């Protein structure tokens, strides 16, 4: 085994900071913004010990604990904020750690830039150490900012310091995990998938342990993060476990990096079949294959999120009813709370499905940029014959993602409320957003046909429409704007009846725009400049 070579770590750090500072700052400041939003809203909602006590009672619900973990001291301001941040921190902090670590390691190596750097006077382990140092620094920065945000709104200072440290050390463990993944896998994609898999497993194990506080909590980095109990009785052992695990993983990653070739990986890439199956050779089969991963990913995401929201319905109602102020604010009793909330969840599902539609249609332009479109059109097949199977697969994918989310929402809501009449209501409401999907698809296709370089601009339309649809009522935007923005066209289903005119406008507009797009696509240069 060769010795570690860490010469030039300063150079490596400078290079990574110069090329990655925007990403680092975006992650840290973005998460800090979420923390500040949460702390300020919790502070204004639960401004008396009584209100905090009633909040603390809702957190003993096992369903809530599966999502947010076992949070100590939820009857304190700090504890309530930790509980509210539970879900975000459990995913966003590991994601930050993975993103920043892989950015400076496997991504650079796969692109061949690492080789370039190592050819100068930079030691082989210097880039790995620099990436780790940068990710850890970002985590420490995030921890400090979190502590400041907590102290700023009046949380107990010593608990706030402990919590900030817990956030940073949770991330450190995942820096270690992704540093190993960067050695094991040859492609950034695979290293990401493996690290994300570990993060998801840690979340599930913590959830399973949190239901009735079993030893399983000690088997997950997220369990250690809970066990720190910043606003209860803080412990040192979980810290020792987090930091110890991080150091052990980083040490192992360094040793592994010394035993392998630059550009190589510990796991050999998988091999596949020699020949394409008959299915893959058909245009439809190839399109199916190309959209498969993205479609399944969105379908699982929609099912998990919608299932979670639905099953929380009763908990949220209890929480609102337990809080006299909120209950008064939402006057109208349980029915008055549930219908608008169901409408909001259906709108969220529509946003998810819309995101899928735009991402899937965006892949058509990527097919063009990569040169594969040219190559396929040099075959004896017209442009329309290339596009049609893709549109068919994306249409099926839209139905699949919508159905996965719609069924999960309908079934979990019905189970949580003990009322099966919600199943047909929510399924119908989910389907009633389909004309909006058609409209979004039409805009994307029209751009693809006539002005492909600007196809991504449809995301701006989507974002504006999403903000108007989701936050419009809260921001007190004019009614006509909310009703005529794409997501408002079908009406606030199922709280209100379907706006048939609006649905027709959206659907017909989508079909016309898609037709125009197809016309443009058959007439333009490929690749378009």
């Amino acid at each position, binding site marked *: 085994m060769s010795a570690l070579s860490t010469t030039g770590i300063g150079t490596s750090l400078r290079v990574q900071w110069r090329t990655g500072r925007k990403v680092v700052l975006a992650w840290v400041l973005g998460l800090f913004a979420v923390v500040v939003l949460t702390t300020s809203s919790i502070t204004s909602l639960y401004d008396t010990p009584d209100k905090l006590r009633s909040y603390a009672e809702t957190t003993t619900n096992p369903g809530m604990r599966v999502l947010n973990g076992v949070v100590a001291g939820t009857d304190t301001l700090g504890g309530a904020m930790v509980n509210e941040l539970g879900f975000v921190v459990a995913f966003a902090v590991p994601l930050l750690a993975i993103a920043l670590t892989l950015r400076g390691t496997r991504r650079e190596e796969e692109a061949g830039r690492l080789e370039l750097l190592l050819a100068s006077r930079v030691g082989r382990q210097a880039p790995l150490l620099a990436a780790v140092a940068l990710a850890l620094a970002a985590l420490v920065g995030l921890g400090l900012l979190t502590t400041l945000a907590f102290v700023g709104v009046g949380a107990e200072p010593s608990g706030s310091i402990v919590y900030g440290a817990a956030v940073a050390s949770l991330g450190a463990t995942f820096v270690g995990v992704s540093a190993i993944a960067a050695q094991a896998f*040859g*492609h950034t994609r695979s290293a990401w998938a493996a690290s994300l898999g570990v993060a998801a497993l840690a979340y599930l194990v913590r959830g399973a342990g949190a239901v009735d506080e079993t030893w399983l909590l000690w088997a997950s980095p997220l369990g250690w993060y809970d066990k720190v109990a910043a606003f209860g009785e803080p412990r040192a052992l979980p810290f020792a476990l987090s930091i110890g695990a991080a150091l052990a993983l980083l040490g192992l990653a360094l040793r592994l990096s010394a035993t392998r070739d630059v550009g190589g990986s510990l796991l050999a*890439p*998988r*091999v*596949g*079949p*020699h*020949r*394409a199956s008959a299915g*893959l*050779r058909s245009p439809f089969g*190839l399109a199916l*294959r*190309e959209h498969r*991963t993205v479609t399944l990913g969105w379908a699982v995401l929609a099912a998990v999120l919608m299932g979670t929201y639905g099953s929380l319905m009763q908990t949220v109602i209890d929480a609102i009813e337990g809080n006299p102020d909120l209950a008064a604010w939402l006057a109208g009793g349980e029915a008055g709370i549930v219908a608008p909330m169901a409408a909001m969840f259906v709108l969220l599902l529509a946003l998810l499905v819309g995101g899928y539609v735009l991402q899937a249609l965006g892949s058509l332009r990527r097919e063009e940029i*990569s*040169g*594969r479109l*040219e*190559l*396929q*059109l*040099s*075959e*004896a*097949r*017209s442009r329309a014959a290339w596009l049609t199977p893709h549109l068919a697969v994306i249409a099926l994918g839209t139905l699949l993602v919508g159905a996965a989310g719609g069924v999960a929402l309908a079934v979990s809501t019905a189970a949580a409320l003990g009322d099966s009449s919600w199943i047909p209501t929510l399924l119908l409401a989910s389907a009633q957003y389909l004309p909006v999907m058609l409209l979004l698809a039409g805009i994307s296709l029209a751009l693809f046909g006539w002005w492909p370089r600007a196809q991504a601009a449809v995301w701006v339309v989507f974002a504006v429409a999403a903000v108007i649809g989701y936050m419009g009522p809260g921001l007190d935007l004019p009614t006509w704007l909310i009703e005529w923005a794409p997501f408002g066209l079908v009406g606030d289903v199922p709280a209100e009846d379907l706006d048939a005119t609006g649905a027709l406008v959206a659907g017909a507009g989508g079909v016309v725009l898609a037709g125009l797009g197809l016309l443009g696509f058959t*007439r333009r*240069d*490929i*690749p378009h*400049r």
Partner: protein
Amino acid sequence: MSESAIIDVHGLHKTYGRTHALDGLDLSVAPGEVHGFLGPNGAGKSTTIRVLLGLTRADSGEVTVLDGDPWHDAVELHRRLAYVPAGVTLWPGLTGGQCIDVLGRAHGGLDDARRADLVERFDLDTRKRTRDYSTGNRQKVSLISALAADVDLLLLDEPTSGLDPLMEQVFQEVVRERVADGTTVLLSSHILGEVEALADRVSIIRAGRTVTTGTLADLRRSTSSRVHTITDSSPGLAGVDGVTALDTGSVDGRIETRCHVEGAAVSEVVGLIHAAGVHTLTITPPSLDDLFLEQYREGPSLRDGRGATSSGSEQDSRGATSSGSEQDGRGATSAGSDEVRR
């Protein structure tokens, strides 16, 4: 020629914004020939091929491919041709073997025996996913799927980028076999050795225009050979028509002469050298590199329609040792492309 030509292009124009990608390009490819299509990066080679495929519509000019109009008859024409693009990104998740089949399916499927033969000769591991391939191996995938198809016309756009010399040899063999079967090939390249080895005729383009076209023998005849000789007395070449870049010196009391000689003047020059008492004599015929570089050096005069070999070569007279003129060549090429930008 136009009647039976496989590819016939006249006065092709294509503008992207303010860039003239094609500026009156002509190209004629006869049945059964390998036609070398030469030009530096950005000269318009790929744009021309995309017009031939009906992917890009020309602003003006006439284009006929296999007796059809590529823009209107694209689908029918594509049954009879196969295309290898420059630097394609294949489907990263498919294996090389899957990609070959997927790409080959629309040429009416590939000839299985030929496919197997090519996979073996190009030494390609078809079970690897293309994201794990090197550039050269990715290029082999496009090549195999095009060369295994049973077609009348192959459009190859820089087909061998990333291939090692061994694979380059295999490529040349396979192209020769296809041509022997009656396939016509348009070979766009800037690897001159490859074009020299394969092409019957070449067209050299610059800034979207055809600068010269013809067989290699034709082009050689109009271009200077390099002469190096050591003689007892001075051969007196100064002032002979067709002699340029003359440089004399002395070696061990004898006269050393280097110069460039046009085809027409060779016999007169050899006579003079012989009369001066030959000690050593080397005449190097122009390589394709020389032809290419010479065309690029001569841009302005060619546009005037004169064969401007002499005016162009005068630039060389500063130092005409072989290494010197190579450097000059490079300098002249870049000067040429400056002008393209203008």
